[in-house]
Protein backbone atom coordinates (compact mmCIF):
# COMPACT_ATOMS: atom_id res chain seq x y z
CA UNK A 1 0.00 0.00 0.00
CA UNK A 2 2.83 2.33 0.82
CA UNK A 3 5.43 0.25 -1.01
CA UNK A 4 7.68 1.81 -3.56
CA UNK A 5 6.74 1.12 -7.13
CA UNK A 6 9.64 0.32 -9.35
CA UNK A 7 9.55 1.24 -12.95
CA UNK A 8 10.60 -1.30 -15.51
CA UNK A 9 14.32 -1.87 -15.15
CA UNK A 10 14.44 -0.01 -11.86
CA UNK A 11 17.23 -0.95 -9.48
CA UNK A 12 16.29 -2.83 -6.38
CA UNK A 13 18.13 -2.27 -3.13
CA UNK A 14 20.11 -5.08 -1.57
CA UNK A 15 17.43 -5.64 1.01
CA UNK A 16 14.81 -5.92 -1.66
CA UNK A 17 16.97 -8.28 -3.64
CA UNK A 18 17.15 -10.58 -0.65
CA UNK A 19 13.42 -11.08 -1.22
CA UNK A 20 12.78 -12.54 2.20
CA UNK A 21 12.13 -9.28 3.98
CA UNK A 22 9.88 -8.06 1.23
CA UNK A 23 8.07 -11.37 1.15
CA UNK A 24 7.31 -11.12 4.82
CA UNK A 25 6.21 -7.54 4.38
CA UNK A 26 3.83 -8.73 1.70
CA UNK A 27 2.61 -11.53 3.91
CA UNK A 28 1.94 -8.94 6.58
CA UNK A 29 -0.16 -6.89 4.21
CA UNK A 30 -2.24 -9.83 3.11
CA UNK A 31 -2.82 -11.17 6.60
CA UNK A 32 -3.98 -7.74 7.68
CA UNK A 33 -6.67 -7.97 5.04
CA UNK A 34 -7.66 -11.43 6.19
CA UNK A 35 -7.97 -10.36 9.80
CA UNK A 36 -9.86 -7.21 8.99
CA UNK A 37 -12.28 -9.07 6.78
CA UNK A 38 -12.70 -11.83 9.35
CA UNK A 39 -13.63 -9.33 12.05
CA UNK A 40 -15.81 -7.14 9.87
CA UNK A 41 -17.54 -9.48 7.47
CA UNK A 42 -20.32 -6.98 7.06
CA UNK A 43 -18.05 -4.31 5.60
CA UNK A 44 -17.11 -6.37 2.57
CA UNK A 45 -17.86 -4.49 -0.66
CA UNK A 46 -19.23 -7.66 -2.24
CA UNK A 47 -22.86 -7.36 -3.30
CA UNK A 48 -24.70 -10.54 -2.33
CA UNK A 49 -26.25 -10.56 -5.73
CA UNK A 50 -29.53 -12.40 -5.97
CA UNK A 51 -30.61 -11.06 -2.58
CA UNK A 52 -29.01 -7.66 -2.93
CA UNK A 53 -29.14 -5.50 -5.99
CA UNK A 54 -26.81 -2.72 -6.78
CA UNK A 55 -28.63 0.56 -7.19
CA UNK A 56 -27.98 1.91 -10.66
CA UNK A 57 -28.38 5.42 -11.92
CA UNK A 58 -31.81 6.20 -13.35
CA UNK A 59 -30.08 6.66 -16.68
CA UNK A 60 -28.98 3.05 -16.66
CA UNK A 61 -30.01 1.24 -19.83
CA UNK A 62 -31.74 -1.97 -18.90
CA UNK A 63 -33.99 -4.32 -20.79
CA UNK A 64 -36.21 -2.53 -23.27
CA UNK A 65 -39.90 -1.95 -22.96
CA UNK A 66 -42.50 -0.73 -25.43
CA UNK A 67 -44.73 2.13 -24.36
CA UNK A 68 -48.47 1.91 -24.70
CA UNK A 69 -51.09 4.32 -25.90
CA UNK A 70 -53.95 5.09 -23.57
CA UNK A 71 -55.95 2.24 -25.04
CA UNK A 72 -53.14 -0.21 -24.34
CA UNK A 73 -51.98 -0.69 -27.92
CA UNK A 74 -48.33 -0.08 -28.66
CA UNK A 75 -47.26 3.49 -29.22
CA UNK A 76 -44.80 2.24 -31.81
CA UNK A 77 -45.63 3.02 -35.42
CA UNK A 78 -43.17 0.55 -36.91
CA UNK A 79 -41.06 3.25 -38.50
CA UNK A 80 -37.94 1.06 -38.18
CA UNK A 81 -35.84 3.96 -36.97
CA UNK A 82 -34.70 1.89 -34.03
CA UNK A 83 -33.88 -1.18 -36.08
CA UNK A 84 -32.04 1.03 -38.54
CA UNK A 85 -30.07 2.73 -35.78
CA UNK A 86 -29.33 -0.52 -34.00
CA UNK A 87 -25.66 -1.36 -34.46
CA UNK A 88 -26.30 -4.97 -33.50
CA UNK A 89 -29.12 -5.47 -35.98
CA UNK A 90 -31.17 -7.12 -33.30
CA UNK A 91 -34.55 -5.43 -33.65
CA UNK A 92 -36.91 -7.19 -36.02
CA UNK A 93 -40.15 -5.42 -36.87
CA UNK A 94 -42.90 -6.34 -39.27
CA UNK A 95 -45.30 -3.48 -39.97
CA UNK A 96 -49.01 -3.72 -40.59
CA UNK A 97 -51.91 -1.42 -41.35
CA UNK A 98 -53.56 0.18 -38.34
CA UNK A 99 -57.35 0.37 -38.62
CA UNK A 100 -57.29 4.00 -37.52
CA UNK A 101 -56.10 6.12 -40.48
CA UNK A 102 -54.84 8.73 -38.02
CA UNK A 103 -52.35 6.15 -36.76
CA UNK A 104 -52.05 4.26 -40.02
CA UNK A 105 -49.06 2.04 -39.24
CA UNK A 106 -48.41 -0.31 -36.38
CA UNK A 107 -46.06 -3.20 -35.65
CA UNK A 108 -47.50 -6.61 -36.45
CA UNK A 109 -44.54 -8.08 -34.66
CA UNK A 110 -41.74 -6.42 -32.74
CA UNK A 111 -38.94 -8.66 -31.62
CA UNK A 112 -35.60 -8.01 -29.99
CA UNK A 113 -32.81 -10.52 -29.76
CA UNK A 114 -31.51 -9.59 -26.34
CA UNK A 115 -28.44 -11.75 -26.78
CA UNK A 116 -27.28 -9.67 -29.70
CA UNK A 117 -28.23 -6.34 -28.14
CA UNK A 118 -25.30 -4.33 -26.86
CA UNK A 119 -27.47 -2.04 -24.73
CA UNK A 120 -26.17 1.04 -26.47
CA UNK A 121 -29.49 2.85 -26.24
CA UNK A 122 -29.40 4.05 -29.83
CA UNK A 123 -32.87 2.57 -30.37
CA UNK A 124 -34.54 4.68 -27.71
CA UNK A 125 -32.53 7.64 -28.93
CA UNK A 126 -33.73 7.10 -32.49
CA UNK A 127 -37.41 6.56 -31.75
CA UNK A 128 -39.48 9.54 -32.90
CA UNK A 129 -42.49 8.42 -30.86
CA UNK A 130 -40.82 7.67 -27.52
CA UNK A 131 -42.21 4.21 -28.01
CA UNK A 132 -39.19 2.23 -26.91
CA UNK A 133 -37.45 2.88 -23.62
CA UNK A 134 -34.68 1.21 -21.71
CA UNK A 135 -35.62 2.57 -18.31
CA UNK A 136 -36.78 -0.67 -16.75
CA UNK A 137 -33.57 -1.03 -14.75
CA UNK A 138 -33.59 -4.74 -15.51
CA UNK A 139 -30.08 -5.99 -16.09
CA UNK A 140 -30.13 -9.54 -14.88
CA UNK A 141 -31.20 -11.43 -17.94
CA UNK A 142 -31.07 -15.14 -17.49
CA UNK A 143 -32.81 -17.95 -19.27
CA UNK A 144 -32.09 -21.54 -20.10
CA UNK A 145 -32.42 -21.31 -23.85
CA UNK A 146 -31.53 -18.87 -26.54
CA UNK A 147 -35.11 -18.67 -27.72
CA UNK A 148 -36.12 -17.09 -24.44
CA UNK A 149 -33.89 -14.13 -25.15
CA UNK A 150 -35.79 -13.47 -28.33
CA UNK A 151 -38.52 -11.36 -26.83
CA UNK A 152 -41.67 -10.36 -28.65
CA UNK A 153 -44.11 -7.49 -28.66
CA UNK A 154 -46.30 -8.86 -25.87
CA UNK A 155 -43.31 -9.32 -23.62
CA UNK A 156 -41.93 -5.87 -24.32
CA UNK A 157 -45.28 -4.22 -23.78
CA UNK A 158 -45.67 -5.86 -20.39
CA UNK A 159 -42.15 -5.33 -19.14
CA UNK A 160 -42.22 -3.79 -15.69
CA UNK A 161 -40.44 -0.55 -15.02
CA UNK A 162 -39.50 -0.87 -11.38
CA UNK A 163 -36.56 -3.20 -11.83
CA UNK A 164 -38.30 -6.27 -10.47
CA UNK A 165 -38.62 -9.36 -12.51
Amino acid at each position, binding site marked *: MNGKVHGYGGKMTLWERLYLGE*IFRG*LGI*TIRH*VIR*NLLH*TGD*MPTVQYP*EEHRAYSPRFRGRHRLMKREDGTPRCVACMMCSTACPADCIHIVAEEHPDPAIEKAPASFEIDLLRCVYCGLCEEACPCDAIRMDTGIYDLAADSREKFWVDKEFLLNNTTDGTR
Partner: protein
Amino acid sequence: MDLVLTTFLKMAFILAVILGLVPVLIWAERKGSAFIQDRTGPNRAGIAGIRLAGLIHPIADVLKLLFKEDVRPAGVHRVMYALAPFLVFFVSLLTYAVIPFGDYLEVGGRRIPLVVADLDVGILYVLAIASLGTYGIVMGGWASNNKYTFLGAVRSTSQMISYEISMGLALMGLLLVSESLRLTDVVAGQGQLLWGFLPRWGVVVQPLGAILFMTAAFAETNRNPFDLPEGESELVSGYHLEYSSMKFALFFMAEYTNLVVASALIATLYFGGWNIPWLSRAVIEARAGVLLPALLAAHVAVCALAAALYLRRASRERGKFGDARDREPGLMAGVCVVAGLAGLAALALRPWEIGPAGASLLATVLQVGAFVGKVVFFCWFFIWVRWTLPRFRYDQLMHLGWKVMLPLALANLVVTAVVAAFV
Protein backbone atom coordinates in the same frame (compact mmCIF):
# COMPACT_ATOMS: atom_id res chain seq x y z
CA MET B 1 -0.35 -59.93 13.27
CA ASP B 2 -0.34 -57.09 15.66
CA LEU B 3 2.12 -55.29 13.53
CA VAL B 4 -0.09 -55.62 10.47
CA LEU B 5 -3.15 -54.48 12.37
CA THR B 6 -1.51 -51.44 13.91
CA THR B 7 0.12 -50.53 10.61
CA PHE B 8 -3.24 -50.62 8.92
CA LEU B 9 -4.79 -48.54 11.65
CA LYS B 10 -2.03 -45.97 11.36
CA MET B 11 -2.41 -45.85 7.62
CA ALA B 12 -6.12 -45.44 7.99
CA PHE B 13 -5.57 -42.59 10.41
CA ILE B 14 -3.16 -40.83 8.06
CA LEU B 15 -5.42 -41.29 5.08
CA ALA B 16 -8.39 -40.00 7.02
CA VAL B 17 -6.53 -36.92 8.16
CA ILE B 18 -5.12 -36.13 4.72
CA LEU B 19 -8.25 -36.79 2.74
CA GLY B 20 -10.15 -34.83 5.35
CA LEU B 21 -7.67 -32.01 5.07
CA VAL B 22 -7.88 -31.75 1.28
CA PRO B 23 -11.41 -30.32 1.06
CA VAL B 24 -10.68 -28.07 4.00
CA LEU B 25 -7.58 -26.80 2.24
CA ILE B 26 -9.50 -26.17 -0.94
CA TRP B 27 -11.98 -24.24 1.13
CA ALA B 28 -9.19 -22.37 2.92
CA GLU B 29 -7.58 -21.53 -0.39
CA ARG B 30 -10.80 -20.06 -1.75
CA LYS B 31 -11.91 -18.35 1.39
CA GLY B 32 -8.40 -17.16 2.27
CA SER B 33 -7.79 -15.74 -1.18
CA ALA B 34 -11.18 -14.07 -1.00
CA PHE B 35 -10.40 -12.42 2.30
CA ILE B 36 -6.97 -11.37 1.14
CA GLN B 37 -8.61 -9.73 -1.84
CA ASP B 38 -11.50 -8.22 0.14
CA ARG B 39 -14.05 -10.58 -1.29
CA THR B 40 -16.58 -12.81 0.40
CA GLY B 41 -15.54 -16.09 -1.15
CA PRO B 42 -17.75 -19.17 -1.35
CA ASN B 43 -20.88 -18.84 0.72
CA ARG B 44 -23.68 -20.31 -1.38
CA ALA B 45 -23.75 -24.10 -1.32
CA GLY B 46 -25.55 -25.39 1.70
CA ILE B 47 -27.34 -28.39 3.05
CA ALA B 48 -30.71 -27.40 4.46
CA GLY B 49 -29.40 -23.89 4.83
CA ILE B 50 -26.22 -24.89 6.65
CA ARG B 51 -23.34 -23.40 4.68
CA LEU B 52 -20.50 -23.34 7.23
CA ALA B 53 -19.03 -20.26 5.56
CA GLY B 54 -18.55 -22.14 2.34
CA LEU B 55 -17.28 -25.44 3.72
CA ILE B 56 -20.08 -27.22 1.92
CA HIS B 57 -18.73 -26.09 -1.43
CA PRO B 58 -16.03 -28.79 -1.64
CA ILE B 59 -18.78 -31.40 -1.23
CA ALA B 60 -20.69 -29.85 -4.09
CA ASP B 61 -17.47 -29.72 -6.10
CA VAL B 62 -16.77 -33.37 -5.55
CA LEU B 63 -20.31 -34.30 -6.53
CA LYS B 64 -20.03 -32.18 -9.62
CA LEU B 65 -16.69 -33.65 -10.64
CA LEU B 66 -17.96 -37.18 -10.05
CA PHE B 67 -20.88 -36.69 -12.37
CA LYS B 68 -19.04 -34.79 -15.06
CA GLU B 69 -18.36 -36.39 -18.37
CA ASP B 70 -14.90 -37.84 -18.62
CA VAL B 71 -13.73 -36.35 -21.89
CA ARG B 72 -10.76 -37.92 -23.53
CA PRO B 73 -9.42 -35.79 -26.34
CA ALA B 74 -8.47 -37.35 -29.64
CA GLY B 75 -4.83 -38.24 -30.12
CA VAL B 76 -3.89 -38.97 -26.51
CA HIS B 77 -1.76 -41.90 -25.46
CA ARG B 78 -4.51 -43.85 -23.80
CA VAL B 79 -2.58 -45.81 -21.19
CA MET B 80 -0.31 -42.99 -20.08
CA TYR B 81 -3.14 -40.54 -20.16
CA ALA B 82 -5.25 -42.68 -17.86
CA LEU B 83 -2.35 -43.62 -15.61
CA ALA B 84 -0.89 -40.16 -14.97
CA PRO B 85 -3.39 -38.77 -12.45
CA PHE B 86 -3.33 -41.98 -10.44
CA LEU B 87 0.42 -41.99 -10.35
CA VAL B 88 0.57 -38.40 -9.20
CA PHE B 89 -1.94 -38.97 -6.46
CA PHE B 90 -0.41 -42.26 -5.38
CA VAL B 91 3.10 -40.86 -5.14
CA SER B 92 1.90 -37.89 -3.18
CA LEU B 93 0.52 -40.23 -0.54
CA LEU B 94 3.61 -42.46 -0.35
CA THR B 95 5.80 -40.02 1.55
CA TYR B 96 3.63 -40.21 4.62
CA ALA B 97 4.88 -43.69 5.34
CA VAL B 98 7.98 -42.37 7.03
CA ILE B 99 6.68 -39.25 8.71
CA PRO B 100 6.17 -39.71 12.44
CA PHE B 101 2.96 -38.00 13.48
CA GLY B 102 3.42 -38.68 17.17
CA ASP B 103 5.74 -40.26 19.68
CA TYR B 104 4.02 -43.49 20.66
CA LEU B 105 0.70 -44.71 21.82
CA GLU B 106 0.60 -46.79 24.96
CA VAL B 107 -1.98 -49.54 24.76
CA GLY B 108 -2.07 -52.19 27.45
CA GLY B 109 1.51 -51.51 28.39
CA ARG B 110 2.76 -51.81 24.83
CA ARG B 111 4.12 -48.81 23.06
CA ILE B 112 3.11 -48.44 19.44
CA PRO B 113 5.31 -45.95 17.57
CA LEU B 114 3.22 -43.47 15.66
CA VAL B 115 4.86 -43.83 12.29
CA VAL B 116 3.96 -46.30 9.59
CA ALA B 117 7.46 -47.31 8.57
CA ASP B 118 10.34 -46.19 10.69
CA LEU B 119 12.97 -46.53 7.97
CA ASP B 120 16.57 -45.90 8.87
CA VAL B 121 16.98 -44.12 5.55
CA GLY B 122 13.78 -42.08 5.97
CA ILE B 123 15.15 -38.86 4.54
CA LEU B 124 16.52 -40.58 1.45
CA TYR B 125 13.17 -42.21 0.99
CA VAL B 126 11.50 -38.83 1.16
CA LEU B 127 13.82 -37.42 -1.49
CA ALA B 128 13.38 -40.45 -3.72
CA ILE B 129 9.61 -40.35 -3.58
CA ALA B 130 9.44 -36.61 -4.01
CA SER B 131 11.25 -36.82 -7.32
CA LEU B 132 8.85 -39.53 -8.49
CA GLY B 133 5.95 -37.12 -8.40
CA THR B 134 7.13 -35.36 -11.48
CA TYR B 135 6.73 -38.55 -13.53
CA GLY B 136 2.99 -38.37 -13.28
CA ILE B 137 3.06 -34.77 -14.42
CA VAL B 138 5.35 -35.51 -17.32
CA MET B 139 3.23 -38.48 -18.32
CA GLY B 140 0.03 -36.50 -18.16
CA GLY B 141 1.47 -33.56 -20.03
CA TRP B 142 3.03 -35.65 -22.73
CA ALA B 143 0.16 -38.12 -23.16
CA SER B 144 -2.38 -35.33 -23.60
CA ASN B 145 -0.89 -34.49 -26.98
CA ASN B 146 -1.30 -30.78 -26.47
CA LYS B 147 1.43 -28.22 -26.67
CA TYR B 148 0.35 -26.42 -23.52
CA THR B 149 0.27 -29.53 -21.40
CA PHE B 150 3.56 -30.59 -22.85
CA LEU B 151 5.19 -27.26 -22.05
CA GLY B 152 3.79 -27.53 -18.54
CA ALA B 153 5.31 -30.97 -18.17
CA VAL B 154 8.67 -29.82 -19.46
CA ARG B 155 8.68 -26.90 -17.10
CA SER B 156 7.79 -29.16 -14.23
CA THR B 157 10.73 -31.47 -14.93
CA SER B 158 13.33 -28.79 -15.27
CA GLN B 159 12.02 -27.05 -12.21
CA MET B 160 12.14 -30.28 -10.27
CA ILE B 161 15.73 -30.99 -11.28
CA SER B 162 16.85 -27.47 -10.42
CA TYR B 163 15.35 -27.40 -6.97
CA GLU B 164 15.90 -31.03 -6.00
CA ILE B 165 19.60 -30.30 -5.72
CA SER B 166 19.31 -27.43 -3.31
CA MET B 167 16.73 -29.37 -1.38
CA GLY B 168 19.05 -32.32 -0.99
CA LEU B 169 21.99 -30.12 -0.01
CA ALA B 170 19.86 -28.27 2.53
CA LEU B 171 18.82 -31.58 4.01
CA MET B 172 22.41 -32.74 4.28
CA GLY B 173 23.11 -29.83 6.55
CA LEU B 174 20.32 -31.02 8.75
CA LEU B 175 21.67 -34.56 8.69
CA LEU B 176 25.01 -33.36 9.96
CA VAL B 177 23.24 -31.83 12.90
CA SER B 178 20.82 -34.63 13.68
CA GLU B 179 23.36 -37.36 12.89
CA SER B 180 20.69 -39.73 11.65
CA LEU B 181 18.71 -40.42 8.52
CA ARG B 182 15.85 -41.84 10.54
CA LEU B 183 13.05 -39.33 10.80
CA THR B 184 11.99 -40.46 14.27
CA ASP B 185 15.50 -39.68 15.46
CA VAL B 186 15.44 -36.33 13.74
CA VAL B 187 12.19 -35.45 15.50
CA ALA B 188 13.25 -36.81 18.83
CA GLY B 189 16.46 -34.79 18.60
CA GLN B 190 14.44 -31.63 18.21
CA GLY B 191 12.70 -32.28 21.55
CA GLN B 192 15.78 -31.19 23.49
CA LEU B 193 16.50 -27.66 24.55
CA LEU B 194 19.49 -25.67 23.41
CA TRP B 195 21.25 -23.86 26.22
CA GLY B 196 18.36 -24.78 28.44
CA PHE B 197 15.71 -22.56 26.97
CA LEU B 198 15.70 -22.70 23.18
CA PRO B 199 14.00 -25.69 21.51
CA ARG B 200 16.58 -27.46 19.41
CA TRP B 201 14.44 -27.25 16.29
CA GLY B 202 15.88 -27.60 12.86
CA VAL B 203 15.01 -24.05 12.06
CA VAL B 204 17.06 -22.88 15.01
CA VAL B 205 20.18 -24.82 14.26
CA GLN B 206 19.84 -24.65 10.47
CA PRO B 207 18.06 -21.37 9.71
CA LEU B 208 19.43 -21.02 6.20
CA GLY B 209 18.79 -24.67 5.51
CA ALA B 210 15.20 -24.21 6.64
CA ILE B 211 14.63 -21.30 4.29
CA LEU B 212 16.23 -23.15 1.39
CA PHE B 213 14.24 -26.26 2.09
CA MET B 214 10.99 -24.40 2.33
CA THR B 215 11.67 -22.54 -0.89
CA ALA B 216 12.52 -25.79 -2.62
CA ALA B 217 9.38 -27.33 -1.17
CA PHE B 218 7.32 -24.59 -2.77
CA ALA B 219 8.96 -25.34 -6.05
CA GLU B 220 8.53 -29.09 -5.71
CA THR B 221 4.83 -28.74 -5.01
CA ASN B 222 4.39 -26.42 -7.99
CA ARG B 223 2.87 -23.78 -5.79
CA ASN B 224 3.00 -20.09 -6.43
CA PRO B 225 5.40 -18.35 -6.89
CA PHE B 226 6.73 -21.47 -8.59
CA ASP B 227 3.55 -22.64 -10.30
CA LEU B 228 4.91 -22.27 -13.79
CA PRO B 229 3.91 -25.77 -14.89
CA GLU B 230 0.31 -24.66 -14.71
CA GLY B 231 0.78 -20.93 -15.36
CA GLU B 232 -2.76 -20.05 -16.43
CA SER B 233 -1.74 -16.89 -18.17
CA GLU B 234 0.60 -18.59 -20.58
CA LEU B 235 -0.25 -22.30 -20.52
CA VAL B 236 -4.02 -22.16 -19.98
CA SER B 237 -3.70 -24.52 -17.04
CA GLY B 238 -0.60 -26.47 -17.86
CA TYR B 239 -0.14 -30.20 -17.63
CA HIS B 240 -3.69 -31.07 -16.56
CA LEU B 241 -5.38 -28.94 -19.19
CA GLU B 242 -6.87 -31.89 -21.08
CA TYR B 243 -8.20 -33.67 -18.02
CA SER B 244 -11.78 -33.58 -16.91
CA SER B 245 -14.05 -35.13 -14.34
CA MET B 246 -12.46 -37.35 -11.68
CA LYS B 247 -9.12 -37.54 -13.47
CA PHE B 248 -8.83 -33.82 -13.12
CA ALA B 249 -10.00 -34.13 -9.54
CA LEU B 250 -7.15 -36.54 -8.84
CA PHE B 251 -4.62 -34.00 -10.11
CA PHE B 252 -6.33 -31.38 -8.05
CA MET B 253 -6.34 -33.51 -4.94
CA ALA B 254 -2.72 -34.49 -5.53
CA GLU B 255 -1.81 -30.84 -5.48
CA TYR B 256 -3.27 -30.52 -2.02
CA THR B 257 -1.93 -33.82 -0.69
CA ASN B 258 1.47 -32.67 -1.90
CA LEU B 259 0.85 -29.52 0.03
CA VAL B 260 0.16 -31.53 3.16
CA VAL B 261 3.27 -33.67 2.57
CA ALA B 262 5.43 -30.63 2.14
CA SER B 263 3.95 -29.06 5.24
CA ALA B 264 4.44 -32.26 7.21
CA LEU B 265 8.05 -32.47 6.05
CA ILE B 266 8.75 -28.89 6.98
CA ALA B 267 7.16 -29.40 10.35
CA THR B 268 9.00 -32.68 10.91
CA LEU B 269 12.44 -31.61 9.79
CA TYR B 270 12.62 -28.05 10.92
CA PHE B 271 9.81 -27.30 13.33
CA GLY B 272 10.04 -30.08 15.83
CA GLY B 273 7.56 -32.53 14.38
CA TRP B 274 5.19 -33.65 17.10
CA ASN B 275 7.21 -31.92 19.83
CA ILE B 276 5.56 -29.29 21.91
CA PRO B 277 8.23 -26.85 23.02
CA TRP B 278 8.90 -26.86 26.77
CA LEU B 279 6.18 -29.47 27.23
CA SER B 280 7.96 -32.74 26.95
CA ARG B 281 6.12 -36.03 27.41
CA ALA B 282 7.36 -36.30 30.96
CA VAL B 283 6.08 -32.86 31.84
CA ILE B 284 2.68 -33.52 30.29
CA GLU B 285 2.27 -36.82 32.07
CA ALA B 286 3.25 -35.27 35.37
CA ARG B 287 0.88 -32.33 35.04
CA ALA B 288 -2.02 -34.12 33.39
CA GLY B 289 -4.28 -33.41 36.31
CA VAL B 290 -3.96 -29.69 35.68
CA LEU B 291 -3.68 -29.65 31.90
CA LEU B 292 -6.78 -31.64 31.10
CA PRO B 293 -9.22 -29.60 33.19
CA ALA B 294 -7.62 -26.41 31.87
CA LEU B 295 -8.07 -27.59 28.30
CA LEU B 296 -11.65 -28.58 28.94
CA ALA B 297 -12.38 -25.24 30.52
CA ALA B 298 -10.85 -23.48 27.56
CA HIS B 299 -13.03 -25.58 25.25
CA VAL B 300 -16.14 -24.62 27.20
CA ALA B 301 -15.17 -20.96 27.06
CA VAL B 302 -14.58 -21.04 23.31
CA CYS B 303 -17.90 -22.81 22.76
CA ALA B 304 -19.70 -20.23 24.85
CA LEU B 305 -18.09 -17.39 22.92
CA ALA B 306 -18.96 -18.96 19.57
CA ALA B 307 -22.52 -19.61 20.68
CA ALA B 308 -22.86 -15.99 21.77
CA LEU B 309 -21.54 -14.71 18.44
CA TYR B 310 -23.89 -16.96 16.49
CA LEU B 311 -26.84 -15.85 18.63
CA ARG B 312 -25.96 -12.23 17.97
CA ARG B 313 -25.82 -12.93 14.26
CA ALA B 314 -29.14 -14.80 14.48
CA SER B 315 -30.89 -11.84 16.05
CA ARG B 316 -29.29 -9.34 13.66
CA GLU B 317 -30.00 -11.18 10.45
CA ARG B 318 -33.44 -12.48 11.20
CA GLY B 319 -35.31 -13.08 7.94
CA LYS B 320 -32.44 -11.72 5.86
CA PHE B 321 -32.70 -14.35 3.14
CA GLY B 322 -36.25 -15.52 3.52
CA ASP B 323 -35.28 -19.18 3.16
CA ALA B 324 -33.57 -22.04 4.99
CA ARG B 325 -30.36 -20.04 5.32
CA ASP B 326 -31.99 -17.93 8.03
CA ARG B 327 -31.89 -20.89 10.38
CA GLU B 328 -28.14 -21.32 10.15
CA PRO B 329 -26.91 -19.04 12.96
CA GLY B 330 -29.45 -20.43 15.40
CA LEU B 331 -28.58 -24.00 14.56
CA MET B 332 -24.87 -23.30 14.82
CA ALA B 333 -25.39 -21.65 18.20
CA GLY B 334 -27.19 -24.82 19.27
CA VAL B 335 -24.29 -26.97 18.13
CA CYS B 336 -21.84 -24.80 20.06
CA VAL B 337 -23.99 -25.01 23.15
CA VAL B 338 -24.10 -28.80 22.91
CA ALA B 339 -20.33 -28.95 22.45
CA GLY B 340 -19.86 -26.67 25.43
CA LEU B 341 -22.21 -28.78 27.52
CA ALA B 342 -20.24 -31.87 26.55
CA GLY B 343 -17.12 -30.12 27.82
CA LEU B 344 -18.89 -29.31 31.07
CA ALA B 345 -20.03 -32.89 31.40
CA ALA B 346 -16.43 -34.01 30.92
CA LEU B 347 -15.40 -31.61 33.67
CA ALA B 348 -17.97 -33.22 35.90
CA LEU B 349 -16.09 -36.49 35.54
CA ARG B 350 -13.32 -34.98 37.73
CA PRO B 351 -10.57 -35.12 35.10
CA TRP B 352 -7.94 -33.97 37.58
CA GLU B 353 -7.94 -37.45 39.01
CA ILE B 354 -6.53 -38.83 35.79
CA GLY B 355 -4.51 -42.05 36.01
CA PRO B 356 -1.07 -42.75 34.46
CA ALA B 357 -2.53 -44.57 31.45
CA GLY B 358 -4.83 -41.64 30.79
CA ALA B 359 -1.95 -39.24 31.24
CA SER B 360 0.09 -41.11 28.66
CA LEU B 361 -2.85 -41.04 26.27
CA LEU B 362 -3.30 -37.31 26.86
CA ALA B 363 0.36 -36.75 26.04
CA THR B 364 0.03 -38.71 22.80
CA VAL B 365 -3.12 -36.86 21.82
CA LEU B 366 -1.52 -33.51 22.53
CA GLN B 367 1.56 -34.40 20.53
CA VAL B 368 -0.42 -35.64 17.57
CA GLY B 369 -2.51 -32.52 17.87
CA ALA B 370 0.61 -30.37 17.90
CA PHE B 371 1.85 -32.10 14.77
CA VAL B 372 -1.46 -31.71 12.96
CA GLY B 373 -1.56 -28.10 14.10
CA LYS B 374 1.86 -27.40 12.67
CA VAL B 375 0.96 -29.11 9.43
CA VAL B 376 -2.21 -27.07 9.13
CA PHE B 377 -0.29 -23.91 9.83
CA PHE B 378 2.21 -24.62 7.07
CA CYS B 379 -0.60 -25.51 4.72
CA TRP B 380 -2.08 -22.13 5.41
CA PHE B 381 1.35 -20.64 4.93
CA PHE B 382 1.50 -22.14 1.46
CA ILE B 383 -1.89 -20.64 0.66
CA TRP B 384 -0.97 -17.34 2.20
CA VAL B 385 2.21 -17.07 0.16
CA ARG B 386 0.37 -18.02 -3.00
CA TRP B 387 -2.05 -15.13 -2.69
CA THR B 388 0.68 -12.69 -1.71
CA LEU B 389 3.37 -13.20 -4.31
CA PRO B 390 3.25 -12.93 -8.07
CA ARG B 391 4.51 -15.76 -10.20
CA PHE B 392 8.16 -15.86 -11.24
CA ARG B 393 9.19 -15.56 -14.81
CA TYR B 394 10.87 -18.71 -16.02
CA ASP B 395 14.33 -17.17 -16.28
CA GLN B 396 13.97 -15.77 -12.78
CA LEU B 397 13.04 -19.21 -11.56
CA MET B 398 16.14 -20.76 -13.07
CA HIS B 399 18.29 -17.91 -11.87
CA LEU B 400 17.08 -18.36 -8.34
CA GLY B 401 17.49 -22.10 -8.41
CA TRP B 402 20.98 -22.35 -9.86
CA LYS B 403 22.67 -19.08 -9.04
CA VAL B 404 21.26 -18.30 -5.63
CA MET B 405 19.92 -21.39 -3.93
CA LEU B 406 22.60 -23.83 -5.03
CA PRO B 407 25.59 -21.76 -3.84
CA LEU B 408 23.79 -20.91 -0.62
CA ALA B 409 22.98 -24.56 0.00
CA LEU B 410 26.60 -25.53 -0.65
CA ALA B 411 27.86 -22.81 1.67
CA ASN B 412 25.40 -23.90 4.31
CA LEU B 413 26.63 -27.46 4.02
CA VAL B 414 30.28 -26.52 4.25
CA VAL B 415 29.79 -24.22 7.22
CA THR B 416 27.66 -26.81 9.00
CA ALA B 417 30.25 -29.48 8.32
CA VAL B 418 33.05 -27.33 9.68
CA VAL B 419 31.08 -26.40 12.74
CA ALA B 420 29.99 -29.98 13.28
CA ALA B 421 33.57 -31.18 13.00
CA PHE B 422 34.93 -28.78 15.59
CA VAL B 423 32.10 -28.44 18.07
